[in-house]
């Protein structure tokens, strides 16, 4: 139990996917303009990460390791993640139109999102069991959502203020991200 909590906190805060490992920057800068969009995106990514982690860790434990083909994990993980995201997109499209419209292009973008592939490869490299993988993915997803929410909050405020004209939009977002990353290094070395 202690181990699981450690893994959760490490993936969510200490080794945050976006801020410490620089994975998943596309949705981080693209969807963080409005708080509501950021929350929906974060939830979608967390969901995909959970399912992807579960499926890939099962495949890793029961298929790849027994047959000594762990080196195939990147190709197979991409296949599995792409199918999963397709299924998630189908499900959202058929059941909740407003959510589908809110996410727009970003849902298929999660397929190529390195954060999702990244978390599955981290699980494989660290040799986590199935339960540990799921907890790590949960931590990763929640950490991603956390940083996305913080970023969108800051960006919404900055938009109301007076930014120099050449800095508006993406340039100031990068500077904010850099300062956020600097702040999060305060957690490094913890655990």
């Amino acid at each position, binding site marked *: 139990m202690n181990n699981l909590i450690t893994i959760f906190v490490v993936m969510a805060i200490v080794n945050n996917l976006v801020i410490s490992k620089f994975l998943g920057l596309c949705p981080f800068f693209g969807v963080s303009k409005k708080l509501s969009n950021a929350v929906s995106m974060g939830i979608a990514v967390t969901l995909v990460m959970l399912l992807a982690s579960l499926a890939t860790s099962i495949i890793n434990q029961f298929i790849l390791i027994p047959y000594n083909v762990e080196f195939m994990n990147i190709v197979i993980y991409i296949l*599995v993640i792409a199918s999963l995201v397709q299924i998630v997109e*189908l499900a959202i499209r058929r059941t909740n139109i407003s959510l589908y419209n809110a996410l727009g292009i970003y849902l298929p973008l999660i397929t190529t999102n390195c954060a999702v592939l990244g978390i599955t490869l981290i699980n494989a490299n660290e040799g986590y069991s199935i339960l540990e993988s799921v907890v790590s993915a949960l931590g990763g997803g929640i950490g991603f959502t956390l940083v996305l929410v913080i970023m969108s909050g800051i960006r919404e405020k900055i938009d109301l203020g007076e930014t120099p004209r050449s800095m508006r939009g993406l340039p100031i977002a990068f500077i904010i991200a850099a300062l956020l990353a600097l702040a999060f290094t305060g957690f490094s070395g913890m655990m």
Partner: protein
Amino acid sequence: MIWIILILTGIGLVCGVLIFVVNKVLPPEPEALQKAEKINKKLPGMNCGACGLPGCFAYAQALAKDKNTFFSNTCATVLQNREMLEDLEKILDIKVDTSAMNKRAVVCCTGGCGYIAKYDGINSCNTASKLLAGPKKCPYGCLGLGDCLNICPQHAIRIDKDMNVAVIDPSKCIGCGLCVKECPRNIIKLVPADAKVVFRCSYDSLRDIPGREKCDYGCLHCRQCFKACENEAIVWNKEKAIPEFDYSKCNECGACIEACPHNKLILFKDLIPKKEKVKVK
């Protein structure tokens, strides 16, 4: 070795079957999306954004919600293509009058005014025009750096190297209006597709820039064109001191074209001479 092939194939098959099953099991698409999908199949799919909406699927969704969006945000590509237009008319149950809606873009400048300085900077009209009203002598005319060329989805614009001016090929232009928005000097204008004569000068006495003269070949406001027209097809705009046209009375006699001392008027069909057909990149 054999295991790798088997495992990859197996996982691929399982994923495929899973997607198929999910597709069958979930409830069918909501009405709005179904209609939008049907409409989307008839749209050009270029995602140029000229209609004002982000992409063809967003346009399809807007049309599904309200079919009159076609008139407020027209898709210029569909308007040119007879088959696409008829298909869309059938699906949306609307009647479109192409003769009234078809437009073409014209660059209202003949170039050739020469430079007062060498421009050494970012190769964009939007940037160059902000630096001391541009490097060319005439501060109202075309800079010839090609912002319009880059944004045209039909590749209908080319730059005339001698005169350093952009020229739009009316046979390729669909009148989407993207270049009109892009030009920093607002010298591209939309004219009806059946326009007969066009006036190519943007000197506007209302926007005089102190310290800068206009082009040597600019419009003199001499009214020779107005006097030369025998069919009263030219109306003189007193505020801007430029000619405007009533194409219903024009019979393309060419009297106004000969009368203009600076060759500012040209027959629309002569804009791109037939001999030099432009090759698309």
